[in-house]
């Protein structure tokens, strides 16, 4: 597993030089969705708080980037705004989790996801509604233009590296231990001095902020955004990525995003339009046989 983790960066750096533009686009999309799934994995996998609203934070980040950069503001400012907005909104969204858990919490976050979608669709004065926002520019960083697909891919990969390093540090720190305790037994954690309320809110805030960061990259990647891209489907897809990869495993989102973003495209060739049926069946079989996801399955196999 460790060798695989070391090989992954090398493969990711080399990959775009062997791919056509559509392949590079898919790989960039995988990077963006991995960042959003890392955020959800922190909230759900490590801290045990279900959220069906991660796609909404991708939307908040994407609209922050689109609105700011289309009017000439630099992308780093969009990053700051998206992080601040997602942190603050994520923190507030965490409050219901102090009162309700499991499927009740899922419904609260589902309502929030619907609310964000309605705002994006109906508040035309701000978001341009269903017409969407076009021509979102890609940034130039210290004189390095990221307009080309390979350059933008490396930009996204750099952000993923930073996010991964930060998350790796976080989950191995005392905060990560407290998140795990919150997931496994909040009552006991509370009795040991762990401020479970604050950690719950932080789990939501940090996870949401990572969703916002993914959104800031999503907008210039596609260069066109509209509300449907951030509806419940995206949140469910991100949930699928976390569950399929392995909830609570550091590399789970990487693998889960690959299954969700890359696998259907790969299966598309040669399956005469039946690929989505095969894909859906494969996911159902996996979840039925191994609810702890692919990494949970791998752990079981290697332990034997």
């Amino acid at each position, binding site marked *: 597993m460790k060798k695989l983790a070391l090989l992954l960066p090398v493969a990711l750096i080399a990959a775009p030089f062997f791919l056509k533009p559509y392949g590079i686009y898919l790989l960039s999309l995988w990077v963006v969705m991995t960042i959003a799934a890392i955020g959800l994995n922190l909230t759900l996998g490590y801290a045990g708080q279900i959220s069906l609203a991660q796609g909404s934070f991708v939307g908040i980040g994407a609209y922050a980037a689109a609105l700011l950069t289309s009017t000439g503001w630099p992308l780093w400012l969009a990053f700051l705004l998206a992080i601040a907005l997602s942190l603050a909104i994520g923190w507030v969204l965490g409050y219901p989790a102090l009162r309700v858990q499991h499927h009740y919490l899922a419904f609260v976050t589902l309502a929030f996801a619907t609310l964000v979608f309605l705002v994006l669709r109906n508040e035309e004065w701000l978001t341009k509604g269903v017409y969407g926002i076009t021509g979102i520019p890609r940034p130039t960083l210290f004189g390095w233009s990221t307009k080309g697909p390979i350059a933008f891919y490396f930009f996204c990969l750099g952000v993923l590296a930073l996010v991964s390093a930060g998350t790796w540090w*976080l989950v*191995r*720190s*005392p*905060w990560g*231990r*407290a998140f*795990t*305790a919150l997931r*496994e*037994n909040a*009552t*006991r*954690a*509370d*009795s*040991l*001095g*762990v*401020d*479970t*309320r*604050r950690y719950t809110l932080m789990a939501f805030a940090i996870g949401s902020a990572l969703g916002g960061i993914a959104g800031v990259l999503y907008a210039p990647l596609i260069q066109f955004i509209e509300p449907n891209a951030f509806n419940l489907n995206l949140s469910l897809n991100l949930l699928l990525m976390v569950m399929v990869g392995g909830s*609570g495993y550091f590399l789970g989102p990487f693998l889960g995003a690959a299954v969700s973003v890359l696998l259907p495209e790969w299966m598309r060739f040669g399956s005469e339009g039946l690929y989505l049926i095969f894909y859906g069946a494969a996911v159902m079989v996996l979840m039925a046989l191994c609810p702890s996801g692919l990494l949970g399955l791998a752990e079981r196999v290697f332990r034997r």
Partner: protein
Amino acid sequence: MSPVLEVRGLAKDFGGIRAVDGVSFDVREGEILGLIGPNGSGKSTLFNCILGQLAPSAGEVRIDGRAITGKRPCQLNRLGVGRTFQLLQVFPQLTVRENLILAGQEHQASMWSRLVGRRDAGLGPAADRMIEFFRLAQLAEEKAGALSYGQQKLLDVAMAFMAGPRLVLLDEPAGGVNPTMLAGLRERLREINAAQRATFVVIEHNMEFVMALCTRILVLAEGRIIAGGTPSEIRANPAVVEAYLGG
């Protein structure tokens, strides 16, 4: 000397049922107080009201003369109050060492420094000492979920002491522990009591364990204290025999 723990007129109602009915008692520093009573007598409910897990319907709790009624469990823990639960409560996915570090880490520095500072929050040596003390050295890097029930129980108790509490409330520490381990547990508790002047309140059904460990015992029946005294006085009290065996 003022008591470490003062409980005054504590009551808890569940609908029409009064589970704890105006209980008052003091616990002095260094004392090991046993709390016994038949099943359903309100012992665990009393613990949960003292420790903020349940909101009492009436009454007051003071620690070192300071009113703590309504404080959250994590706030009480930071005031030096530790506890164990009736049912086993360790974190199965964390190793034995990590369980112990977790049990003390929130007492270390600020929240921010716990993020940017050392992974063990500076508690590695203290955790190792606790592991040695509770004879868990061979299991330090094992996940807690892989331990036997008795070993998990020892870990559960050890966690309550990681933050160096002044007062520890132990809810059935002997439950499900084999006799050999039980003798070890009793010795460990006595050593901590002697070395740190730590004060214990122990709920226990194992009479042999509670009589050997405690310096004073209170008997609870139907939510009320019906007797109190030294272990030998309790043994000879007809009201206690009546409460346990019925008339």
